[in-house]
């Protein structure tokens, strides 16, 4: 495998030294392309007070190819399926090498704040969301409490 590009080292340093509020990303000891990420649920969203674990992997072609991101914590969201896969334009067609780990994670946080049931990945959730938004949000809150509870400090 090719050696770690400078860009990845730089991004990692920046993430550790100057973290985004509400988001942490730490590279794995054995594989510096694999990050363990946590994102706090945005305020005034059904995911408030939750801490969601994600994994992020930088493929060999990064930054020409988008990073691979997946939710590890269960979440009730129309654009995130049961396996944690995320439907987000910047992770697919709209990826650009000018983006970086930081911006991707911010986009994911924004996706939590404003779900988009019209472009669903989890069809059943999206249906629920469109038919009965309040009910769906209540369920999302419930799941957040159930699976993404903040650890007592």
């Amino acid at each position, binding site marked *: 495998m090719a050696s770690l590009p400078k*860009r990845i080292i730089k991004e990692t340093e920046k993430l550790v030294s100057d973290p985004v509020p509400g988001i942490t990303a730490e590279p794995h000891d054995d594989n510096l392309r694999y990050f363990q990420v946590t994102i706090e649920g945005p305020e005034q969203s059904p995911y408030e007070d939750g801490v969601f674990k994600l994994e992020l992997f930088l493929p060999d072609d990064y930054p020409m190819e988008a990073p691979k991101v997946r939710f590890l914590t269960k979440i009730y969201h129309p654009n995130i399926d049961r396996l944690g896969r995320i439907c987000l334009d910047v992770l697919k067609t709209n990826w*650009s090498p000018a983006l970086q780990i930081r911006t991707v994670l911010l986009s994911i946080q924004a996706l939590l704040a404003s779900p988009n049931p019209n472009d669903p990945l989890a069809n059943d959730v999206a249906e629920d969301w469109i038919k009965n938004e309040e009910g769906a949000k209540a369920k999302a809150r419930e799941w957040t409490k159930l699976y993404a509870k903040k650890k007592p400090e």
Partner: protein
Amino acid sequence: MDHQITTASDFRSTSIPNLYQLDTLLRCHICKDFLKVPVLTPCGHTFCSLCIREHLNNQPNCPLCLFEFRESLLRSEFLVNEVIQSYTSIRPALIDALKIQKPITDDDKIRKPQDSSLIELILESENDDSNTADDDLQIVATSERKPAKRSMTDILPLGSKPSKRSFTMFRSERIKKKSKPNEQMAQCPICQQFYPLKALEKTHLDECLTLQSLGKKPKPPKNLNADLKSQDKETSRPKSKTPETDKSDEVSHVDKYLNSIAKEEHQRLPKINFTSMNLSQIKQKLLSLGLSTSGTRQNFIKRYNHYEMLWNSNFCDSLEPVDESELKRQLLSWDVSHNKLPQNTNNNGGISKLMMMKSSGKSSSYRKLLENFKNDKFNRKGWIVMFQKDFSRLIKEAKLKIKSSSPNGSDLTKHIHDDGNEGKLQGVQETDVQQMEEGQEIPLTEKQEVNEINFPNEDLTDADLSRELMDMNEDGKDPPGSD
């Protein structure tokens, strides 16, 4: 190419933190490093030539604004290129000068005209703190420094004679600054000029030595500065002459920009639509360029595309193109790491020949080894024997580097200790040491343990290891928790 990792935040701890903006602007948004052979897109954004071309191979749009355009519309930016080269050459000195607030040495001062305004800014801001005249006087009295004074007079605002008041203020400020961080002046053994100790050690000695090796004799500093002053007065050229090697550097950036002409010696390589070509046509194409024809059709196409990118970046954008053999070398190393070849192919093309030339003497065995480089039949032992020297040199370098950073031996001891069966682990470790010295692979017997112990081991020097072992022996005699 610099291998150091620099970030714009280096300026956060300097007296002008806003310089980080300048630093950020001069970086490529794809590789996050300083722009290397910058090119302009039709939408007005600038990237490294190689970065943007690689991106355009995937997606024909601008990474920043998603504007769609074709590769042929890229134009190189000679000015930005020189700006960055000039900037990166002074950047370390700039950070250094701004960080510890040490006095600016003569050459720093002269290196870039803008610097003087920077320094004046600092001085002004410090003046705002309203230092009493008494302090100044005292310091002038106690810590007079001849060279400092001299350089002071030399770098005063050019042209008009400064008023006496501003002169003294400036001087006392400056001297105070000198004395503040306990700066020691020392004489350069080569050019006999006085410099602050740090600047001398860090930059000046090297510069002086290079200068000497070039056969240029540094002129005595005093005359030089006088020269400079008069010259600046007379000609008021944007770039002043400097006594250091940077002089040639500095001038050449301007000249280089003025003389930069897009070279048309090499035709750009066209994009090829491979779908309409059959295998032998593609092969023919590669052969005509002297490229390897190993692998499958997919390999051919990828190889051509990568070569086209390297070629166009080198011959169309770069002001200092390297020659074709260097490009082919770059292509080969890319080929090995990215373009996965199917098993057992014969590398008959130009590239392998090139590589064999490089490793002359051991070419046949080298070639044999390279054949299986990517598969299971790869002969590790042979490879190790062949490159033993290089490996041991690299290991030595790495060890040295780690030695200079923090030693974390104690952690390891504790770690092993916690595991609770020292005897066995110690055995593993001893073999590790031996094998590491032989430069061979450690057999993965018990994956978990080897992983745990092996990783830190690689980071330790031999001395650390032996200390480690001794520690463990002692622990063995005196088991923990036996109270």
